[in-house]
């Protein structure tokens, strides 16, 4: 067995171990440690990606001395490695980009706690991506929830604490349902390991036993994960949480955490239940409908919003709607489009958050549009970055957003059901127009010159060097968006092959 195959496990253990280690170090040290750790994990994941692409097949890795159904194991394929790589890059950039805010908004004595939370969150994301055991997945979902809550409320004011209360309530409902679904599944199949569960489920589906419990536990797990990943009607905690927590937390949460749950859901569909059973169970239609509603309502709420951070938060509600719409189409290509959209949205939304914070810093940290006027001139790089992010969100060609929209449309066409096709296309266009409305409004606002305002409120200009980490993050994110938009083909191929070896 090649040494490279150990790397995923080493990644998980490393990120897990840096959590406790950070607890005794000082804030600065923990930051360094955290950055080093994430970089190392990114490099290792890239190596794993290269290895899996070369070998062209997924492999399983025993966690312990005991083979599959008895011990835990993790399973590594192209898709997992790809996601791990991209996630670590985005995590790194988010942490780098938000360092200044953290220094100002967090108490000096609680800096290191932030990084503990970040490390544990990252670890849980990796574990969710790699694990092949559904109960392990549950445990790490809980870690994910708790540490995400920590990231929200570490900047302490009424809004964030209330928001994290809402968040906890919602996600506890979700994880309760998820746990119950897992128990049902265990009861029906007698296994906790995904592949074995799939075999058993196939047998059950063939013999037609336990149909109702099977359906129920599919529903439970789907609803649970949908609640946790803030699908439309369950999004109430989201705007406050993203709007008032410190910037890097918002970026990480919106671009990674909710995606982690969605990936777990995809994993459950493909590896635990089997996609054909899912299709037969028609649960996808429910997701489809909720996704469509989310796509529209999220954008509508975003239009009504007067606080830029909350606006971006609402737009990510809409984007999650896109992803669920893709899943709901139920076709292979739909899922591919969703996975690609997970990547592209992660890139562009994190960019938007970083850029927005840059803009608000140039406007005396006010987030309302009135005081953002002309901020594009006060903080040039942030203005440009925000524009690019908005264009990517709006689906401007040569940026990531356009490609994912294009693939969603293709997926809609692949779908046999014509009403679904038309619905998907029409809602796609409508929500795109709404996106354009509020993003372009913001862009025009930040490029309306207002020297008078700036003078009267004495807003400082922020140079590129004056915010070096943020500039670095923004440039990297812009490059990422551009890359995803320009050469989407290889990534699409990766995702495709990854999904093939996923099930």
């Amino acid at each position, binding site marked *: 067995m090649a040494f490279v195959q150990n790397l995923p496990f080493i990644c998980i253990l490393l990120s897990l171990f840096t959590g406790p280690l950070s607890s005794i170090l000082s804030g600065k040290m923990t930051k360094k440690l955290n950055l080093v750790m994430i970089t190392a994990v990114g490099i290792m994941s890239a190596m794993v990606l290269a290895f899996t692409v070369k070998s062209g097949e997924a492999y399983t890795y025993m966690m312990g001395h005991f083979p599959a159904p008895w011990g835990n194991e993790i399973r590594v394929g192209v898709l997992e490695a790809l996601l791990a790589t991209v996630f670590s890059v985005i995590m790194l950039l988010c942490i780098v980009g938000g360092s200044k805010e953290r220094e100002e908004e967090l108490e000096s004595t609680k800096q290191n706690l932030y990084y503990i939370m970040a490390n544990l969150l990252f670890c849980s994301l990796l574990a969710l991506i790699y694990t092949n055991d559904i109960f392990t997945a549950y445990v790490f979902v809980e870690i994910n929830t708790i540490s995400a809550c920590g990231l929200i409320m570490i900047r302490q004011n009424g809004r964030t604490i209330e928001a994290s209360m809402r968040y906890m309530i919602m996600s506890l409902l979700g994880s309760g349902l998820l746990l119950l679904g897992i128990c049902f599944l265990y009861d029906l199949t007698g296994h906790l390991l995904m592949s074995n569960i799939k075999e058993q489920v196939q047998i059950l589906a063939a013999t037609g036993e336990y149909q109702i419990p099977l359906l129920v536990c599919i529903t439970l797990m789907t609803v649970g994960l949908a609640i946790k990943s803030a699908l439309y009607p369950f999004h109430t905690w989201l705007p406050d949480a993203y709007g008032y927590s410190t910037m890097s937390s918002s970026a990480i949460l919106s671009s990674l955490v909710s995606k982690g749950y969605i990936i777990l859901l995809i994993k459950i569909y493909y590896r635990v239940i089997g996609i054909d059973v899912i299709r037969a169970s028609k649960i996808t239609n429910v997701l489809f409908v909720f996704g469509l509603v989310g796509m529209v309502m999220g954008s509508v709420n975003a239009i009504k919003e007067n606080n830029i951070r909350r606006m971006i938060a609402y737009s990510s509600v809409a984007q999650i709607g896109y992803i669920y719409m893709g899943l709901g189409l139920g076709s292979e290509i739909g899922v591919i489009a969703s996975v690609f959209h997970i990547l592209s949205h992660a890139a562009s939304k994190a960019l938007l958050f970083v850029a927005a914070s840059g803009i608000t810093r140039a406007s005396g940290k006010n987030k309302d549009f009135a005081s953002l006027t002309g901020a594009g001139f006060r903080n040039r790089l942030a203005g440009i970055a925000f524009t690019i992010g908005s264009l990517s969100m709006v689906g401007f060609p040569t940026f990531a957003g356009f490609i994912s929209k*294009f693939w969603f449309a293709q997926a809609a066409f692949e779908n046999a059901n014509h009403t679904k096709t038309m619905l998907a296309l029409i809602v796609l266009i409508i929500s795109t127009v709404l996106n354009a409305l509020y993003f372009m409004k913001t862009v025009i606002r930040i490029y309306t010159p207002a020297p008078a305002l700036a003078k009267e409120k004495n807003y400082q200009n922020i140079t590129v060097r004056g915010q070096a980490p943020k500039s670095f993050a923004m440039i990297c994110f812009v490059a990422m968006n551009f890359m995803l938009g320009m050469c989407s*083909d290889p990534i699409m191929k990766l995702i495709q092959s990854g999904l093939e070896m996923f099930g």
Partner: protein
Amino acid sequence: MGIWILLPIILPIVTGMYLLISSFLKHLKSTESELKTADGSLKPVVLLTLIVSVAAAFYASWTGDKSITLFYLMKDIPICFKVDAVAALFVTVVSIVWLLVGFYAFPYMSHEGEEKRYFGFYLVVYGVLMGLNFSGNLVTLYLFYELMTVTSMPMVLHNGSREAIMAALKYLFYSMCGAYMALFGIFVLNKYCDTLAFVAGGSLNTVLAQGNETIILIAVMAMLIGFGVKAGMLPLHAWLPAAHPVAPAPASAVLSSIIVKGGVLAIVRVVYYVVGADVIRGTWVQYAWLILSLLTVFMGSMLAYREPVFKKRLAYSTVSQVSYILFGLAVLTPAGITGALLHVVFHAFIKCTLFLTAGIFIFQCGKSRVDELEGIGKCMPKTLWCYTFAALALIGIPPASGFISKWYLAQGAFDSQIGILGWGGIVVLLLSALLTAGYLLPITMKGFFTEKKTEELEFEKGEPPMAMLMPLMILAFLAMILGVLPSGMIDYAAQIAATIL
């Protein structure tokens, strides 16, 4: 060889970007006095770039067909450019107008301020338009169409006043709506066409299309309406009268003479080069399109007739005139297409002239309402004569150019099998021609023949500087002369029509 196409696209964009960035840097040390001061290096840079790229554009478009593929945006969807007859026609018109208006704009913008930003965007938009005209497939076209919207918007909100911003938002939102309806169409066609590249006569895959006619027709209709936004077609025309008056005169001149033609070009490409005319002939789509365009023609003229503000009146007349073109395209007959293409050229020159005249009126004596212009001919006769020629051409009085194109439009309406709509169309065209006379000529009348004595008129300045008058005269002259000896152009347009039908 194909590399020549890139020059007129890249060069202006790069130069414009340079200008923008430098003006941007200037903005940072934002003391008003510094912003006001213009620097001498601007004019030579802009003119040099314009001339070089125009020359390159001519060279690229008139030395045989060529094509170039930049890179693949997605699997089998390249970003590629291609020269063909239509592209050559549009490129020529755009280049001439852009160059002349560029000359005109220098004195004008000197009192609007922010020249660097304005000319930066002016150049960028020129490059983008070149890309639009040369684009070789639908996705490239869409890309440059969006770019055109985004980059031409700052010219609208040049003086960042509140109504300017509102108008720009309106413009942006309408165009984006249209673009996304078109995008929907692109998604559909990508499924049912062999290729999104432009093939004369269309490349619809009949096997795939079997049984999906409805969705294809819906898609085509969506694209017609979507691209029709730029061309000011009926349901989504409202941005035009809002955006033109607030923009500075040179900007509104190019907006209504060139940018709107971008929509026309897109429609030509979609209908005749991707879908194919036969697909929509005789379907509800054609009739809907005809009816919409005719309604727009009539309504535009009516509104223009009632409009007191000069530039707004011209904007409404643009709405109606561009729909002449759309009508010509919609009848799907060679004569109709010929007329439409001719009208594209003529209307570009004419409407440019009219807007520049309006600009001169504002520039010299700050008069923007029609009723204030009484007796203007006494103090600036040359300008008013140019205006009058252009007006006559637009109305279509022989031998002026407008007559030719309208003649062909009418002929196209005759020999198309659209029954009553053909006749109705001709009636509407004549009616709207009368209205055109009704809303353009009074200015000439009042301008020259007024009861007031010369000393009663309160126009502080006389004729504008030569740099503004010259382009005006050239354009007016073009508008007339093309009507006097049109044979070359008619053959060219007829040839295009023959190839694409």
